[in-house]
């Protein structure tokens, strides 16, 4: 049986970590073909070809695939679906936008955020903010899935798959890209970082949130935030960790001035080591923290930054 996997390509660059984790997840299901689509996608395709376990790479290079618009990419995947039993993608915002559309075009259910592959039709996925793990068995002939990357290791290097052209599908031309507001950063990407330092409402302002960034930079960590910190404008939207933001599972997660609402825990409780810094010793975050430090973050965080 064969798997078609949508590689995560942004501005011509392959998100290797997310794609390699999805390859690892779907490899037991059959021969894996990775599709790289974008306005420029050849470099990404060459990179995808080097992931161990990839049998073939398809490249669709065309302006219509350039700006993450759902309709053209969904049309492409649906046009290629023919021979594949599984169509998968890492559960990024792009895939969450595209894959349910593909599933409906094929008249099948989408199986989002798969955290474990049991067999060709049976999958585990977290529900209710991770408070329950559901096992579902699909009755559909074709399965469309997104992969929760935090639950899988990345497939290694060493692949040398052949790259072939995919014919672009007709563009329904229903939407148009106007612009991006993307902050460039030298920090590691949140979902693949080995360490993450996150700040909450307690930081109080965007300026003071810099304390979190300083500690993160010292640790070589990515920066995360609670919803409250993002809503208040202390941190950008794509730093939000949680049920409705990003799901992370780094080796080290440091939660600073975050109370530990279930929605936040849903995004980080699979981290290997969790540190909580909070002035309230009753804060729920301490119930899941390996190391808790009770006190004022404005004193403790700069001290920690100086000592690591």
């Amino acid at each position, binding site marked *: 049986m064969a798997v078609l996997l949508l590689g995560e390509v*942004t501005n011509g660059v392959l998100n290797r970590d997310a794609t390699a984790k999805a390859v690892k997840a779907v490899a037991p299901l059959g021969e894996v073909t990775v599709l790289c689509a974008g306005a420029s996608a050849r470099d990404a395709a060459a990179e995808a070809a080097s992931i161990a376990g990839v049998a073939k790479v398809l490249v669709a290079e065309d302006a219509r695939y350039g700006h993450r618009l759902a309709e053209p990419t969904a049309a492409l995947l649906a046009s290629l679906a023919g021979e594949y039993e599984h169509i998968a993608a890492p559960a*990024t915002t792009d895939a969450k936008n595209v894959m349910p559309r593909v599933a409906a075009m094929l008249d099948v259910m989408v199986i989002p955020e798969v955290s474990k592959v049991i067999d060709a039709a049976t999958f585990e996925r977290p529900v209710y903010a991770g408070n329950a793990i559901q*096992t579902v068995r*699909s009755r559909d002939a074709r399965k469309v899935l997104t992969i929760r990357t935090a639950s899988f290791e990345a497939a290694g290097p060493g692949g040398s798959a052949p790259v072939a052209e995919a014919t672009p599908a007709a563009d329904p031309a229903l939407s148009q*890209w106007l612009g991006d507001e993307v902050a460039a950063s030298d920090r590691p990407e949140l979902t693949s970082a080995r360490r993450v330092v996150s700040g909450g409402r307690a930081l109080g302002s965007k300026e003071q949130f810099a304390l979190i960034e300083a500690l993160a930079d010292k640790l070589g960590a990515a920066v995360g935030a609670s919803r409250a910190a993002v809503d208040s404008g202390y941190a950008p939207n794509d730093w939000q960790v949680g049920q409705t933001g990003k799901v992370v599972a780094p080796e080290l997660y440091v939660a600073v001035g975050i109370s530990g609402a279930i929605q936040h825990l849903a995004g980080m*409780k699979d981290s290997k080591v969790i540190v909580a810094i909070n002035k309230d010793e009753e804060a729920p975050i301490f119930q899941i923290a390996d190391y808790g*430090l009770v006190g004022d973050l404005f004193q403790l965080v700069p001290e920690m930054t100086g000592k690591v």
Partner: protein
Amino acid sequence: MKILVPVKRVIDYNVKARVRADGSGVDLSNVKMSMNPFDEIAVEEAIRLKERGAASEVIVVSVGVRQAAETLRTALAMGADRAILVVAADDVHQDIEPLAVAKILKAVVDQEQPRLVIAGKQAIDNDMNATGQMLAALLGWGQATFASKLEVEGEVARVTREVDGGLQTIEVRLPAIVTADLRLNEPRYASLPNIMKAKKKPLEEKTAADLGVDVSPRLEVVGVREPEGRSAGIKVGSVDELVTKLKEAGVI
């Protein structure tokens, strides 16, 4: 322009879901249920468009058990004009899959002919994040998911979306589907007089069968279990002790 807003009745976001002892699912008996928070945001956005003169009518629709009528009343109290309840299940533990919900919503769209559908980005119970996108596919409409800003101008909607890496702005031709993210707006509370008024607003009831939609699930829920637990570790007394522990653990 009519706007259709699908709203789902879900476990209240403050309630921690508990798995039933027999592993068949999550216990929803005697649990506080509320409108899915993303759907409150969707309703609010639709009402604001109407208040700005960009929309003529806001119709809310819910698919599920009869009790979802309460959720629809909440939306009416916020300011929606009328409601449609599509009864598709009779046990609160029976949920309808996004594909079936999308097919039902398509039938409603065919009848009501809205120019815009604003759904929530995801329901906080099953966290599928799928219904809006599926509906867009079935209708052959454009979609703008995870919206943090929405402007309707003539024949297009201009939408800023929350995506990995930051924000993206796109223009989607109407009719279209928009799904609401957390920062689109802050939903209002219904006032007491509006709650009273909502009782008199029209609420039409249909069944999935009336709309000719087969809701039999494609995904069979084989079992539901508790996640692996995580227990509290230790409290450290100082930054020095913390740094020592983290070095011992090999994480810094």
